[in-house]
């Protein structure tokens, strides 16, 4: 119960003996713990049910990172935006666009992949910057601006080509096939990159000034403004980060399936937002942890692999399960915020 004692909250002064449940509900880390607990429970349940089918092998666990690395990167970007109190709907489109852009440059224009990677990242970051700029300077709702971004990037995919482009470039295939051995199993380059991004985001959010600003702007924009925080710069930076992460996720996705398609990653923004919410970040902004996002992504990934192991369940059960989880976590969040107010 170390988690309950560590919190320096002050309800003690008002209510002399807060019940253990109340303190627990007031703990900001509760949603993350619940998600982590859920992940463990699901994993153990999977172990007991599919033990004979090789669920317990370490590689199955590693595959969660390999198969969801791109989603993790995208969700980390979305975490920044949501922490700052905004929303980014353009994630899926930017991912789709990046796959298309990369495939087109590598296959049709014959550029080496090492040149294409920085270009794709720059385009994604610039797209995010533009959206942030419009959101901040013209005070248009993030929802609408990023919706326009969704249309724009999905449209640009189709402008490049209506057909999917498969990538046969040997350097791309060797990158995609590269494995990093960890003794018990291996990870792909994509998974490693995703974990590095996660670590970077954790550092930025919790140990830099910029990270504090993101929380401050998301917690209460008015107060942040009165405190003299550079609110505009923070907001624009947050959307730029999200654009960058989406482009990076797009690159990982390209490596993962080695093709570009105008319809790749349709609706992935919903998966990313769902992962962030399941990971315990408040959609109103200002509260949440990027580690929670990791667990959110892992839970979604685990649902997918359990459905694969089950074999008889159809793919749409993934959507239904995601929706149910989303609902449960939103209600938990709600219970927490009402407790805090009371």
């Amino acid at each position, binding site marked *: 119960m170390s988690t309950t004692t560590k919190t320096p909250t002050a309800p003690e002064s008002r209510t002399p003996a807060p019940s253990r449940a109340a303190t627990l509900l007031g703990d900001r880390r509760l949603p993350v713990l619940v998600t982590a607990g859920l992940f463990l429970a699901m994993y153990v349940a999977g172990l007991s049910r599919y033990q004979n089918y090789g669920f317990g092998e370490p590689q199955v666990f590693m595959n969660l990172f390999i198969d969801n690395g791109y989603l993790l990167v995208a969700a980390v970007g979305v975490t920044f935006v949501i922490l700052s109190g905004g929303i980014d709907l353009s994630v899926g489109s930017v991912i789709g666009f990046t796959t298309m852009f990369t495939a087109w440059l590598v296959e049709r224009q014959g550029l080496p992949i090492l040149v294409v990677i920085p270009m794709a990242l720059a385009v994604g970051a610039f797209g995010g910057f533009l959206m942030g700029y419009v959101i901040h300077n*013209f005070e248009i709702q993030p929802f609408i601006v990023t919706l326009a971004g969704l*249309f724009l990037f*999905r449209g640009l995919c189709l402008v490049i080509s209506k057909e999917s482009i498969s990538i046969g470039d040997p350097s791309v295939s060797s990158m995609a096939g590269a494995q990093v051995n960890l003794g018990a199993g291996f990870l792909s380059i994509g998974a490693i990159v995703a974990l590095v991004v996660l670590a970077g985001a954790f550092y930025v959010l919790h140990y830099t000034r910029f990270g504090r600003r993101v929380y401050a702007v998301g917690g209460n924009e008015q107060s942040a403004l009165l405190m003299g925080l550079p609110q505009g710069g923070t907001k624009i930076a947050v959307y730029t980060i999200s654009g960058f992460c989406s482009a990076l996720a797009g690159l990982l996705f390209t490596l993962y399936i080695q093709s570009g398609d105008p319809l790749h990653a349709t609706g992935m923004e919903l998966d990313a937002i769902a992962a962030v919410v399941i990971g315990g970040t408040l959609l*109103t902004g200002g509260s949440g942890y990027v580690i929670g996002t990791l667990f959110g992504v892992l839970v979604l990934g685990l649902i997918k692999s359990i459905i694969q192991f089950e074999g008889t369940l*159809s793919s749409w059960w993934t959507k239904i399960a995601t929706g149910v989880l989303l609902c449960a976590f939103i209600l938990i969040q709600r219970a927490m915020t009402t407790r805090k107010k009371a």
Partner: protein
Amino acid sequence: MTTTPRWRALTHHHLFWPVAVLVVLLLVNVPFTPDFFSIRMTNGHLHGSLVSIVLFGSPLILVAVGMTLVIATGGIDLSVGAVVAITGALTCSYISDQSDQSALSGVFLAMGIGLLAAVICGLWNGFLVARMGIQPIIATLIIMVAGRGVAQLITDGQIITVNSEPFKMIGGGYWLTLPFSIFVVAVVVAVTVMLTRRTALGLLVESVGGNAEASRLVGIRSRRIKIMVYVFCAVCAGIAGLMISSNTSAADGNNAGLWIELDAILAVVIGGTSLLGGRFSIGGTVVGALVIQTLTTTIYTIGVPTQTNLVFKAAVVIVVCLLQSPKFRAKVFRGKFGTKPGAKGGTGQPAAAPADTAPAPEAAPKMEVS
């Protein structure tokens, strides 16, 4: 001097910009298809570009009208696309199970089941938003994510096709020479306008959107209003779902009504309703939905490659939103015509103010909010 205030009153009318955009879009078509505005009579049905714009735009108009009221209460409903899919899936799967698919009673029952599902979705959204106090964008995200899964569950992942004459009527039939769906839309819009503008309901919706807590203290049952609005929106989406599945005689759980929530929100915004809530314009929304449909038609007729459709749409969204943003107007237009408002304000306003008292109070708050 007399034309200026009148022109001002006109440009400040809340429907001016949406209608202007619509007219410009329609006129753009004329050089490319000279008979764009002509309407022919073939086989007792009216045909023409204008008719087809309204016909193909009718599901969007319905969803957008429902969405307008939700947005007016300061909410948003992302689940409409999923509701469209669920309604279509339930109705089609019920009809396809019948031995006689054209039996009127069976079709009505099927539609009733579909709409009932829509009502349940609306109640659920309303419950989460009004009772649990969850942000609308998140509360409706649940059905948006899970709803398509449910629709695919109902259709078993297949595309269910039906062969039913009466059901075909709603989305693809003709009545009095016009597509039947136009009448459905007209009835829904008329009822909505009647309920919101001839009764106090519209005022209540706006007051809840303006400040839910204050309206509750004043004695308005703001929770009930909110739930009602979400149910209404879901029912509109349900009717749109019936229309879409009837038009194609099939239910596709995965693709029916895909992105319609985004188009609908766009239509509402183009129509001049602020996303912040507290004010709405059904007329504006209808015009906004027509603008979107006309845009799609225009892209086809002027020969722009269809794959640039989305880029075009994005450009229009950005331009419309920028024009509606007071900050953008202030920055761009004041920079260019810096002297104009000041000079006019000195001489024109005192004379103009008594002349057009009626439109002025209507226009003034619009400028602030939108």
